[in-house]
């Protein structure tokens, strides 16, 4: 006869076959709140002193990142107390990497948001020529941005590597993926979703 204690023991169904991924990889990442939310090299939009931080891993060629971007900005603007950290995670190849580098380089002269907004306003796939034309249209001189990138190449490339490392370590499958304080939201978030997630982070 099986008594209750045995019953509880037996009910460890599947316990033997459970293998969650090894924690080893994560020990190397330094996936700390500090690194994810407060990377000193990552530009901050919204309210830099906000009480909630939203991190978005995105790519300038990801169509749904760009489609959802106005909603994200709107949620952040309406709230007024949110730090928004857009983290480039170029998964669409070299064009995306170059776009990310140039926009971050624009940050060196304090014009990060302007450069970002111009590229986020495009739709879908990009070629180098379109990236250049878009940035020029927003008042930038591409040659200057390239120069600024070269001056800060180590810093910018290390930031991109850290971003990708974090997205990997979180197990995100692609862009966009969000982190709101300590909660992860892979996939597209509309304005309402994000507002809700921010409220949840405060409660």
């Amino acid at each position, binding site marked *: *006869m*099986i008594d*209750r*204690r045995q*019953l*509880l023991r*037996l*009910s*460890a*169904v*599947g*316990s*033997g*076959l*459970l*293998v*969650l*991924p*090894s*924690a*080893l*990889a*994560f*020990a190397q*990442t*330094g*996936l*700390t709140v500090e690194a994810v939310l407060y990377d000193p090299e990552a530009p901050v939009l919204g309210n830099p002193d906000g009480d909630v931080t939203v991190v978005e891993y995105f*790519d300038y060629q*990801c169509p*749904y990142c760009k*489609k959802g971007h106005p909603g994200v900005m709107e949620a952040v603007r309406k709230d007024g107390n949110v730090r928004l950290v857009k983290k480039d*995670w170029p*998964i669409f190849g070299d064009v995306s*990497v170059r776009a990310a580098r140039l926009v971050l380089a624009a940050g060196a002269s304090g014009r990060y948001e302007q450069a970002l907004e111009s590229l986020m306003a*495009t*739709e*879908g*796939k*990009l*070629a180098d020529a*379109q990236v250049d034309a878009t940035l020029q249209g927003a008042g930038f001189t591409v040659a200057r941005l390239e120069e600024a990138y070269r001056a800060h190449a180590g810093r910018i490339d290390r930031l991109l*590597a850290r971003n*990708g*490392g974090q997205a*990997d*370590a*979180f*197990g995100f*499958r*692609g*862009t*966009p*993926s969000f982190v709101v304080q*300590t*909660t*992860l939201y*892979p*996939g*597209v978030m509309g304005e309402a979703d994000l507002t809700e997630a921010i409220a949840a982070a405060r409660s």
Partner: protein
Amino acid sequence: MRLVPAVLIFLASLLPLQAAPLPADEAFALSASRDADGRLQLRWDIAEGYYLYREHFRVTGARTGEPVPFTATAGERKEDPTFGSVEVHYGEAVITLSETPAPPLEVSYQGCEEDGLCYRPETRRVDPETLTITAASGAGGAPSGWREGEAGSSASLTPSPAPASGDAGFVAALLAEGGQLWVIGSFLVFGILLAGTPCVFPMYPIVAAALGRQGERLTVSRGFSLSAVYVLFLALAFGLIGAVAGLTGENLQLVLQSSFMPGAVAAIFVVLALSMFGLFELRLPAAWTTSIAGATAARGGSYRGMAVLGFSSALIVGPCVTAPLAGALLYVAQTQDWRLGAAALFALGIGKGIPLVILSTFGSGILPKAGRWMETVSRLFGFAFLGSAIWLAAPLLPPGLDLALWSALLLGLASFALAASAAAGGMGFVIGRSLAASAGLYALILALGAASGGTDPLQPLAHVARAGDARGPDVAFGEIGGEAELQATLADGSAAGRSTLLYFTADWCVTCRTIERRVLPVEAVRTDLRPLRLLKVDLSEITPRKQALMEALGVVGPPTMVFLGPDLREVSGTRLVGTVSAESLSGSARRAGGA
């Protein structure tokens, strides 16, 4: 009694939840084959609502890094306002290699979920000889060193293969021990053992009230047969729900237990209580009165009523997750053998009902039949119903409000007992006055508790006593919403070398409340839990990510406690499902902590 609408609502709630993006291997399932000419073909079965970019296919020699030429089937043009258009594949994509290079090959591809996630490039290694496909390492634009962690984490979210028979499965173990009859017999016994747990309590007032309706015609044999019909149909519904749950993989218990469900059932209890107080016998619709009158005339009517009642009660009683229930559901899910699973759950339901049948049979003999007493008894049932309603609704109410409600209910009971005893003589007078006095006294204590911020109806003033006490903080669980956070929290330096208790709970979970009030505060338990990292997953609101975590861990519902070692492997033999005693929790915690 119309619980039928509840059944409809229950069925409607089974509609699929909004899904999280699929793992890449489910969105884009890759397979390899050879065509008639012996050329290597790679084929992706693309899930609905997902697409692959034609231009992102790459095939390279894994050792040489040299590109391998191939032809791809034509895709569809997808309008892309800035770039003109891009070619994408919906449904399926096939590429054919024009030559077969030296193995192994690496193939990479990229796609998106329509209006959703754009996947990072995925790379798989293909062996052209054996046609096997494995996750490749060191691919894509990701920094080196990260790739393996990613491949590992996406693998863990894919459903685990069925366990080898033996000690892995609870039902499988019983089956191996003594065959199918042994499984069914054991579940019957488990049912009897579980009959005393709080989640079975709502059955008692339901049956008592239904029997009370019988009035003078209630005899021992009738009490037996009516309650037996009730239990039989309860068990039938139980088996049926279990089989469907196991087969579809949908977690019926969870879907069922939205905060709406206890609210609805509580409302039904209030209505029942009012009818017990004689408040609306006058106002019942004609159809109802006829059916009640019919039930008194024709014996068949009341049996049918009991059957419906039993079947619907499974919706209230069923949601309690217990070890045998979890075992049976997982067994069905893994083996698709719904017959044995359903039979086992049927036996479990019968077992849960046996004490009820015994009580009803003897109770029917003892219960007074006529006169004022019958009226008194049905009023008392009314109070029992109101009590059940408060008890069910408590988790939905602001903390402390249930104390006020209990207080009001007990005051009502006190004045009722006072009034009823005035007319009674002898023992009736003594019982009535004692009941009135004790109910009134406790109502007063509850009111004091509610007014001073107490939250536990069983210890309404405990917070006052505790105020001066220098006891440490309560056992505190960090909350997580999915696997990624589990790993993120664990990656935090302080977690190094520590085991984790992952506690699945929910507001509506009655057994969880018992655990939180009775088991967690025990000093020995607190001591044994101290070395562990305590995390909880609140299933009051189910998200796709929580569901994925439950699936990955084989968790059926709350309460379930899973102990993970520092390597995130579950410590074997420590899992606790359903009611937990302080000893078993301490035991598991010690084993996990020492692992």
